[in-house]
């Protein structure tokens, strides 16, 4: 498949120039030199090309041969992707470890999907059927939870000439022959798709179902819809990776693609050790079974880091096309943007803001636009939700990557340095964050969880805003001068922050909260405010309110009441109402 198309003329780190090019196309996959390092053509000029190389180029000298593949950088798609761990250009890291040990050496070539493993295939289509692109030909039980649909590739339609019978086959076995106008196509369980091109769909659908993450501050205050895109910006140490991990663990997606893009090696190890032990709260199966990991850590080649984001989203789209809801974690998109900047600099392009290339916003837009709730070619509903971490230098949100990302996402979870310093996690700021999906998903909450949800949510957000204004007064003159009715707001917001917004990822009970539990906890806190405000109006003092015995239970309810004991929250709510009423009665007479 590979043929010599030219030779290296100049080596500049991960970017090389080659001349004497006979044939080449933009974004074509090439191999360079004796070690056959993988690269991609990023510029064509006369009979010269520029290639970004995905591996370390130490020792590469001018004169080395460049081999062309005739096709763009692509990924392999088929059964066996789930629970795998890949590098940025889809090389299986576990297999590499088995072959070459602790370190990743150059020039390793291993198929992305296991060629030996046999899958039990059940045909759905029959010989003689007319097949449209994306139509399901058969199914494979990939994991306990996921029935993998083998689809006709998006560019093939025609009549099935032969169809294999039910049985155990490897991924390369021809399962069907489709007769098209252009000739006969042999279809196997594996297909290839260029990573920089979105997979086709029938149409886009509105995103009106929330992606439930089990994280209270997200689901209740700043929800994201299935098919939505959200950015998580935060300086170092504010907990971006923890947020990404928590969403990857507990969200109600069918498939999760986790991209560790230019981040720490130990974080990937953490995921690898933790996910197989954790179980999906809905299916009871190990979380790893629904996860694909892409690890291009910060010390791995920079060009492959740039590719890793596309590799991940293409796999996500492939599962979306089978009718699954897929969530993709990109940690961190800033590292991807920096890889872009580094390569752009090596290609001596004219820089725009802070050295980033002028096409940064275009690339960001292309990436985030690949999220969405869609009707697939085969007529099913599937979605890709993107949760992209952003690492702004110095924690300053005015830098280009954060600013441009904001234009293309509809939810924004801003991580706050002060909250993180006080170890208030998740450190999602309730003042700077927003979600434009609230309107779209409100019907889902009122129909499936609680009709009061929008009202409760609005009320608590209003209290948080008022608290912020009051805090400015407090900072100048102290809390003592405020009337009890206003100090109650401070108290309630404190309670809300500690007992609701703050959520421990390491506590068995607290780490995940069902929507029912979330709404009941919210109701208890809002009730405390409503009745408390009433009692104060009737003449009770704040001190009396603070002495209510039920209060300490409120502040610890997140640890003490588990998801399956939600009715205990009802009891707590009743007790609160009773104690408050009694307090009110004492003063009612005066």
């Amino acid at each position, binding site marked *: 498949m590979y043929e010599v198309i030219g030779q290296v*003329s*100049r*080596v*500049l780190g991960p970017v090389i120039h080659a001349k004497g090019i006979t044939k080449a196309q933009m974004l074509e996959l090439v191999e360079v030199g*004796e070690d056959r390092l993988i690269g991609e053509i990023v510029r064509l000029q006369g009979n010269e090309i520029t290639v970004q190389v995905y591996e370390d*180029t*130490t*020792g*590469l*000298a*001018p004169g080395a041969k460049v081999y062309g593949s005739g096709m763009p950088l692509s990924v392999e798609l088929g059964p066996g992707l789930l629970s795998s*761990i890949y590098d940025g250009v889809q090389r299986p*890291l*576990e297999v*590499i*470890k088995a072959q070459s*040990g*602790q*370190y*990743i*050496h150059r020039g390793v070539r291993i198929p992305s999907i296991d060629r030996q493993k046999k899958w039990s295939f059940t045909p759905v289509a029959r010989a003689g059927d007319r097949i449209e692109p994306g139509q399901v030909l058969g199914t494979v039980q990939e994991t306990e939870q996921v029935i993998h649909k083998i689809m006709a590739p998006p560019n093939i339609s025609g009549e099935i000439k032969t169809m294999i019978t039910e049985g155990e086959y490897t991924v390369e076995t021809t399962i069907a022959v489709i007769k098209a106008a252009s000739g006969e196509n042999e279809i196997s369980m594996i297909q290839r798709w260029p990573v920089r091109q979105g997979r086709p769909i029938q149409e886009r659908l509105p995103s009106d179902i929330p992606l439930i993450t089990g994280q209270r501050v997200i689901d209740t205050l700043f929800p994201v819809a299935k098919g939505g895109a959200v950015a998580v910006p935060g*300086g*170092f*140490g504010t907990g971006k990776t923890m947020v990404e991990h928590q969403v990857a663990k507990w969200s109600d997606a069918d498939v999760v693609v986790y991209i560790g893009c*230019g981040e720490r*090696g*130990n974080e*990937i*190890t*953490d995921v*690898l*050790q933790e996910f197989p032990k954790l179980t999906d709260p809905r299916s009871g199966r190990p979380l790893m079974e629904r996860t694909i990991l892409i*690890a291009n*850590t*910060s*010390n791995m080649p*920079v060009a492959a880091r740039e590719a890793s984001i596309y590799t991940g989203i293409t796999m996500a789209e492939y599962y979306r096309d089978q009718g699954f809801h897929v969530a993709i974690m990109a940690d961190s998109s800033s590292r991807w943007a*920096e890889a872009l*900047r580094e390569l752009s*600099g090596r290609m*001596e392009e004219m*820089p725009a803001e*802070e*050295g980033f290339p002028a096409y940064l916003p275009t690339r960001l837009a292309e990436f985030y636009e690949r999220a969405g709730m869609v009707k697939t070619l085969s007529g099913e509903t599937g979605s890709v939700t993107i949760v992209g971490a952003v690492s702004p*230098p*110095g924690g300053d949100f005015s830098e280009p990557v954060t600013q441009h990302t904001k234009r293309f996402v509809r939810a924004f979870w801003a991580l706050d340095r*002060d909250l993180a*310093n*006080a*170890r*208030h996690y998740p450190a999602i700021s309730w003042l700077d964050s927003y979600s434009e999906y609230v309107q779209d998903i409100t019907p889902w909450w009122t129909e499936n969880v609680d009709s009061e949800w929008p009202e409760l949510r609005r009320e608590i957000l209003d209290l948080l805003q008022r608290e912020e204004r009051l805090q400015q007064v407090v*900072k*100048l*003159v*102290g*809390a*003592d001068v405020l009337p009890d009715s206003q100090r109650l707001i401070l108290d309630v917001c404190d309670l809300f922050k*500690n007992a609701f917004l703050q959520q421990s990822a390491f506590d068995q009970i607290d780490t995940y909260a069902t929507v029912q539990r979330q709404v009941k906890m919210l109701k208890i806190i809002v009730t405390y405010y409503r009745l408390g405000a009433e009692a104060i109006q009737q003449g009770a003092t704040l001190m009396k309110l603070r002495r209510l015995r039920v209060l300490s239970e409120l502040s*610890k309810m997140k*640890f003490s009441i588990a998801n399956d004991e939600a009715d205990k929250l009802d009891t707590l709510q009743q007790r609160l109402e009773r104690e408050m009423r009694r307090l009110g009665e004492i003063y009612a007479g005066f």
Partner: protein
Amino acid sequence: MPDSDKKLYSAREYQGIQQIVGPLLFIENIHDVGYNELVEIRDTRGNERLGVILETSEGAAVVQVFEGTTGLALDQTRVRFRGEPLQLPVNREMLGRVFDGLGRPIDGGPAPVAQERRNVNGSPINPTARTYPTKFIQTGISAIDGMNTLVRGQKLPVFSGSGLPHNRVTAQIVRQAKIVGEEVNFAVVFAAMGVKHDVARFFIDNFEETGVLENVVLFLSLADSPSVERLMTPRTALTMAEYLAFEEDMHVLVILTDMTNYCEALREISTLRGEIPSRKSYPGYLYSDLASLYERAGMVEGSEGSITQVPILTMPNDDISHPIPDLTGYITEGQIVLERDLFQKGIYPPIAGLPSLSRLMKDGIGPGMTREDHAHIASQLFAAYAKVKDVRALASVIGEEELTPLDNTYLEFGNMFEKEFLSQKEDEERSIEDTLDIGWKVISHLPKEELYRISEEELIKYYGK
């Protein structure tokens, strides 16, 4: 080019270079040479210097000379291309020796006999081959053990400022660091980049006093060495560390000081080459470059040893958002921040309560490792100390007299925390139990109702005891 050809070409010597700019040589009319490979340069007196190829094109190359270009002439300089990257001979006998930044002995002893020669650039560790670090290292310093626990295989930098006692704190960590109840063969790899002689002297004396010098390998590229040599120093040091940890199964503590000087050298070269600058004129690849150093820490499957990294860096103008500490913080697993305010109050070690962080702490503490109450008491101390900072800010506006009684209690707690918990003597080694007990002692100054991050059982067991 096949390796055999490279060997053949490596015997070829060229005379004359076209251009010298700072530490960079531009050479033309040569054979095609490989990127990143080693170059030998011989000046008119026959003295050898080493360099590395930064850029190569047909018949021409850009070479960066480690020892600087002083005294090189255009036409009489001789150049040979080795056809291989810079390699460090490694063996166990190198323990106790002193080398320069490129791995050549400077203690008067003979060059080490190589059991093995290793490419100093290393290779990335396969993330699936890593073992997640969970072993608690007791440093005997409360601010670290109690609130920012160090674990074996972690990379935890010290962010300091000029004039702050980062060297004393680091020396104390080296002296006291141990795994409770375990005798191990350990080693220290010490890399100095652009620091002064007396700083290096301070560490060497310290190693000598504690009798560990025979377990230390030193790589010194001091302030008077050419700045380019600093770019290789951490790489040779980490290559040594990898050998000791993963081949000889030793537990290696790597001290890199001062990373700021390393980054300055990187900027210098980048500017000379006319590369497009990024923030504060540092090159756009500063993050990737630092990552290629910091990520060479940890533990791997199939090997008993470990590399724990403690890089030291001074924040220019005490600014934590400066690119060097900023990018470092994004790569390392937390940071120990030294604070000028505490230092001026006479508190040693002046480890800042809030911005310091250890990301691997969660997995290294708790029952069986430290104590069951550790996570909660640490979290509560952070929360309470954050509140102290708020109250102090308020008090500076309205005066302490106007504060509520509770706020005053917080102020008292803040002072106790700094004087009793953070502060300790330079030779004081506290066990983790002592650290946690002191933590309880100071937190018990606050009323029980304020301790919302601590469970009922823990309050009963420890509060006010």
